[in-house]
């Protein structure tokens, strides 16, 4: 286990020297999930996990891999459409949670006339716009600055594979996440993939067999915490089987 990680329990105060100190332009310390500020100057954790700090962004949060997904602004998620109201689709991010709203107009090129028709239980790849405790989370499928979908929108075909929240985070974190499986597979195999922070990936490998193989390989990396070497080995095995 890495020596520098600090493990906290709910109620533990995080000492000032463990937190990044605000310097330069960025004056404010940003507290991420799992931390709360108790005035005047105490920072305490609310969940179990490892303290992670980012000096560049002057941010600190608690990393944890268990529990239900809590929507956070900016997250990419795979949402399930439940119902449609006059202006928006009601979606769920995890089963049995209150609805998140996805406005009919929050799709690329959508107008009042050409809004997409989505049946109940269809899947959408979306980004969380707002997530506060007092309002239902709002989702969007367009980039507000460009008006383009940027890969978001209704998901056709493919299969959903459940992964842990930590794995989802790793897969979206790029090189830092240490997931090299997809690149290794991608050298030989064409497939589409959408990773949701809410603990799901949608894989479409064209054929049933390849979709299954890729999805299960991802789950294996997650469950067995495979390192880079092991992932490459797994990728070879998968490519051979398909």
């Amino acid at each position: 286990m890495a020596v520098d990680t600090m493990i906290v329990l709910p109620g533990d105060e995080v000492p000032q020297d463990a937190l990044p100190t605000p310097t330069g332009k960025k004056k404010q310390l940003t507290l991420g999930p799992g931390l709360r500020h108790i005035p005047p100057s105490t920072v305490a954790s609310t969940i179990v996990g490892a303290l992670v700090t980012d000096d560049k962004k002057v941010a600190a949060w608690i990393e944890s891999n268990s529990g239900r997904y809590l929507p956070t602004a900016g997250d990419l998620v795979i949402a399930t459409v439940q119902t449609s109201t006059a202006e928006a689709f009601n979606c769920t991010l995890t089963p049995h949670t209150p609805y998140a709203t996805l406005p009919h107009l929050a799709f690329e090129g959508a107008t009042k006339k050409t809004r997409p028709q989505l049946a109940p239980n269809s899947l959408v790849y979306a980004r969380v716009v707002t997530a506060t405790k007092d309002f239902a989370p709002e989702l969007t499928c367009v980039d507000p600055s460009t008006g383009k979908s940027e890969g978001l929108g209704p998901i056709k075909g493919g299969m959903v594979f459940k992964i842990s929240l930590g794995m989802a985070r790793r897969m979206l974190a790029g090189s830092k996440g240490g997931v090299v499986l997809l690149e290794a597979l991608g050298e030989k195999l064409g497939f589409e993939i959408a990773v949701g922070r809410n603990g799901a990936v949608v894989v479409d490998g064209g054929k049933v067999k390849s979709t299954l193989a890729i999805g299960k390989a991802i789950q294996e990396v997650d469950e067995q915490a495979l390192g880079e070497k092991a992932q490459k080995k797994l990728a070879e095995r998968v490519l051979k089987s398909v």
Partner: protein
Amino acid sequence: MAPEAILSHLHRADGSATYTHNGYCIIGAVNGPIEVLRRDEMPEEATVEVNVRPAVGVGSPKERHLETLLHSTLRSIILTRSIPRTLVQITLQVRSLPDEESSTGVSPSLLLLPHLLHTSLLALLSASIPLSTTLTAVLIALPSTNTATASTQLLSPTAQELLRAKPIRSAHVFAFSGEGKLLLNESDGTFSYEEWDEAAEAAQEVCCKEDGGVGLGEGMEVDGREGQNLDDWLRSVVRTKVGHEQRWKSTS
């Protein structure tokens, strides 16, 4: 023997824990924050629901009573205001009890209560429900044979130990928050204020962080327990959990 705990081992629940101690085995599961029924919804707070399910049969008033105690205790450590209009659902299934439980002469609810508290805390931690603090709890039994002194107190006794020390004059359950504040006390039997005070002090020693180098109660060492209190135990459980989650970082 320190309690044994396995965390996040159920697939459906958001958080889960199996807790084994002194012949008790309890499986705890937490779902949350999830959608709450309209009639239970609270505008500014989360609703907390506790279900205690006995090993044999369906719930009885005894379980309802335990649920009430757990509900009020857990509500005070869950940051309900940070997840308003949602439900945190805690289910505790008693898997096994020591055979001698019924003949100890101590209220079965009191015997079970500290274990239920620990199980629910572990399950809440596993579900990453925001908490203001942790909690630890202990049962202290005072046998009637001797005059009550610290040395005759039975700290977290097994059912066997209780049988041997029968009759028990009073039994006390104390639960402390991570900061060492008293969260819950349930006492049963006849006892003097001094006895209660001593029991509370002993309980605090077992439950909370050592500050100022106060050692463990002597009774503990006689029984051959590890030199560890419950707060340390909790931290070690959590360390294993986080270690397991982060193991991908250290593998190749």
